[in-house]
């Protein structure tokens, strides 16, 4: 492959309209397009070169619902057939009665005893229709109503960095802070610790990851950060850094 046609380096920050490569040697992917002989960026983000394919990992943006994602949602309303849930995206989500519980629900029963308005739930997207209507289910391991704990929101493109490679980052934070953490793919994070101090350190750590997600060697930075707070941070899984998805 002729490297001279490439106008950028891997992990460069690129802006919309920037020419990433000339000629037909490279293929446009997510966040890029081909115009005449050029591959051009269509969004702000980090350019990634994977073989012949150039794609852009956005620095920010809204969550786009995807089938199979486990998200943290907030119950917004109760209607005849189930619950409508806020997913931190532009589209409405529905949790129908049959997907919510295996209990027998009598006609006219008070649905608030399962999920009340304002409750947070860990739920899975099992279908996204062509009209972007989201169907949710509570049937699966770990899917449940969240009681107590606090909620914070992060930009959804940063979610893979918070989770880390094979969950390495989040499990390191969990061990260091003694907190229970659930990171929804939609950027809603639920944190529950034994005391406020633990939770505050977790919030601070996640904010730091969000701010410095583009820096390489992030796991090491976070490890040092946790240690500076007097926490023991041990990284167990592979330490190799990737900017890609977990």
């Amino acid at each position: 492959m002729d490297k001279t046609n490439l106008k950028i380096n891997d992990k460069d920050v690129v802006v919309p309209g920037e020419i990433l490569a000339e000629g037909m040697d490279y293929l446009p992917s997510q966040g890029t397009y081909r115009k005449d002989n050029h591959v051009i960026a269509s969004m702000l983000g980090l350019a990634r070169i994977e073989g012949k394919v150039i794609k852009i990992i956005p620095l920010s943006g809204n969550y786009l619902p995807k089938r199979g994602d486990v998200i943290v949602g907030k119950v917004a309303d109760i209607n005849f057939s189930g619950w409508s849930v806020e997913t931190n995206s532009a589209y409405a989500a529905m949790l129908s009665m049959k997907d919510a519980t295996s209990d027998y629900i009598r006609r006219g029963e008070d649905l608030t005893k399962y999920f009340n308005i304002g409750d947070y739930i860990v739920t899975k997207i099992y279908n996204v229709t062509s009209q972007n209507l989201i169907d949710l289910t509570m049937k699966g391991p770990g899917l449940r109503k969240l009681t107590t704990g606090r909620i914070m929101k992060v930009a959804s493109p940063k979610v893979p960095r918070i989770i880390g490679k094979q969950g390495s980052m989040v499990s390191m934070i969990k061990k260091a802070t003694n907190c229970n953490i659930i990171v929804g793919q939609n950027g809603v994070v639920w944190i529950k610790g034994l005391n406020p101090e633990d939770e505050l350190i977790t919030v601070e750590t996640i904010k730091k990851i969000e701010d410095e997600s583009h820096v390489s060697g992030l796991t090491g930075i976070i490890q040092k950060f946790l240690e500076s707070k007097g926490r023991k941070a041990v990284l167990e899984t592979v330490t190799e850094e990737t900017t890609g998805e977990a």
Partner: protein
Amino acid sequence: MNKEKQDHVLNYLNKNVRYDGRKKDEYRKITVETGIAATAEGSAKVTIGETVVLAGVKFEVGAPYPDQLDKGTMMVNAELLPMSNPRFESGPPNIESIELARVVDRGIRESNAIDYKKLCIKEGELVWTVIVDITPLNADGNLFDASALAVLLAIKDAKMPKLKDNKIDYKSKTDQKVPMLEEPISVTVLKIGNHYIVDPVSDEEDVLDARLTVALTKDNTICALQKGGEQPLSEKEIEEMVDLAVRKSKELRGYLR
């Protein structure tokens, strides 16, 4: 109100920590900027933590009110934009934005901050109207204090435009400032459980029992009060909240320079 969330915030307060790690009587970092909008005669931006509020001042001339023929007037308007917090909806003003505008208005008006008599151009015929607009750019709690500070700074920053044949020439400004007599500072104190806190973040505002906005003049005279929230306040509680407000107002007054 979400009981679980309130319990969680209370759990923090019982251990003397705020939901974002601050002390109970601590404000977030405050920065102020004036003269940031070229199209307004006066403007100010106040940042308290994540909360950002913009205030702008425009002038108009018109007939005075029939009961105060020798006095100018002031108008305060607030618009809570959906971009500042997803909880807000666009459309006609709702109860929240009306309350915000009125509380800020009352603080300025009842402290006699503006010398309305000097805003009279011709008695009974023509007076100045000071129009203030409040626009939160990001609403993460404590819009009352941020807006009150921004409005006062914007009025202080304002330079009156030139008057030509009883009409305003907005293109040419004079060096004349709005005649000021007083500088009212607003401090909002929240009551959650049996705790008093200042400068709440959104999460804390969501679970408040009661709130009291206190506007204070330079010599700590209370010039306006606004009570909010569902729980009642006893006389003793109001006294304690006012004491805290008086203490914090000195800190806020420092940002007037």
